[in-house]
């Protein structure tokens, strides 16, 4: 696969190559993390900030592009909410019950993911179809009495935390080297989360192509 299809000189440069000319393909993931600000209107842009302070936040090496001859075949999307279990007052009967389950419900009820490559939108999905496919499998046992209206402990993930539970694309998307790409998560109105502002991760699952070295 020619990774620089628009460069007519690429073949001539091979004689000066400082890398082995062959490519290798490995299983890979591109991910980035941005904070969702509670009680504010959020329009979060992923993959455009380049490297972040630590590897748990992103593995991007440059802002908006894949460096060198690296390319990526995106086969699936994942969306992970980095929340913690919540203990909250039980809402009055007939009211919405806030907590970790409600955090997920609010985020996916109104959120939309949009992937742009170059200047063109290549994927647009409501957030409720994009699971994390991983995360805590929660169980609780509690004891004691809590004064009326009581207390609720809960935890939730986006979809069941099973590794094959990712939004797999019927048609994969190829991101060529040094082409701009970004993912935007948007919500039309402010959302208040239990536990306050929370970090969100968008991950693309697929194959990383890079020079053999």
């Amino acid at each position, binding site marked *: 696969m020619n990774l620089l299809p628009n460069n007519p000189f690429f073949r001539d440069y091979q004689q000066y190559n400082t890398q082995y000319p062959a490519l290798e393909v490995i299983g890979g993931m591109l991910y980035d993390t941005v904070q969702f600000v509670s009680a504010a209107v959020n329009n979060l842009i992923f993959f455009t900030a380049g490297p972040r302070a630590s590897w748990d936040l992103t593995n991007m090496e440059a802002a908006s592009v894949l460096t060198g001859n690296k390319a990526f075949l995106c086969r699936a999307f994942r969306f992970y909410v980095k929340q913690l279990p919540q203990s909250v007052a039980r809402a009055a009967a*007939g009211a919405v019950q806030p907590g970790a389950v409600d955090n997920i*419900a609010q985020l996916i009820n109104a959120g939309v993911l949009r992937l742009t490559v170059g200047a063109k939108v*290549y994927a647009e999905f409501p957030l*409720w*179809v*994009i699971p994390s496919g991983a995360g805590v499998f929660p169980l609780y046992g509690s004891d004691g009495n809590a004064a009326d209206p*009581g207390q*609720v402990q809960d935890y939730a993930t986006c979809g069941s935390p099973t590794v094959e539970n990712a939004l797999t*694309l019927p*048609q994969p998307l190829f991101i060529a080297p040094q082409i701009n790409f970004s993912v935007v998560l948007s919500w039309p109105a402010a959302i208040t989360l239990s536990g306050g502002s929370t970090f969100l991760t968008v991950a693309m699952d697929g194959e990383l192509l890079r020079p053999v070295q």
Partner: protein
Amino acid sequence: MQQQIQYPENYRQFNTQYPRSEVVSGMLWDTIAFTNATLQLTFFTVAKATVDLSNMIIGGQLPYPMAFLVRSIRLFLKQRPESANVVAPAGTQVGAVNNIALLYNTGSFQITVGAKQYGIYPLWILSSGGGPYGFMNVINILIAGGMADYGGMGTPHSRNAFTLAQPLFIEPQMSFKVDLYWPAALALTRTPLPLCVAFEGDLIRAVQ
């Protein structure tokens, strides 16, 4: 499989698009609020104000030269967890789970392309294939008991979508819609509750 419209050949030199089409993974969705008096909801016929509600560019059809191959259908109820008092034995426990059960038990679903029906299904066959997956625990000294619940339409797993045995191809500028029917009014704990219908499959569009 695009429409074979014969444009004047000399217009090609002024083309603002590449003549080829491309196929990308796509989804078409639309959202309408259900109220307890609702007996019918019609989806995809009106473009909406924000993209979380719908990504239809125009109402009722795909603008030329966009087309869509529907491989599976999803249904998602945009509800939130509910708090309720525990109902006396032998009563129906109201709450978020009951909301889903009520909608499923008497709802039906119909796809129309052009003037022809392309599928009628009971609503319970459609699942979201997404949504919160969690656990809730309540402590309360109320003798009558308090509870909190949340329900989704089927297991929230991306493989859990109603896949059509034969995909449906929707051509450009062909009218299509989805209707949901209920024979009688329901009594959900909270309305209006937005219901979202989504087609999953391949989007065919011009290379640009």
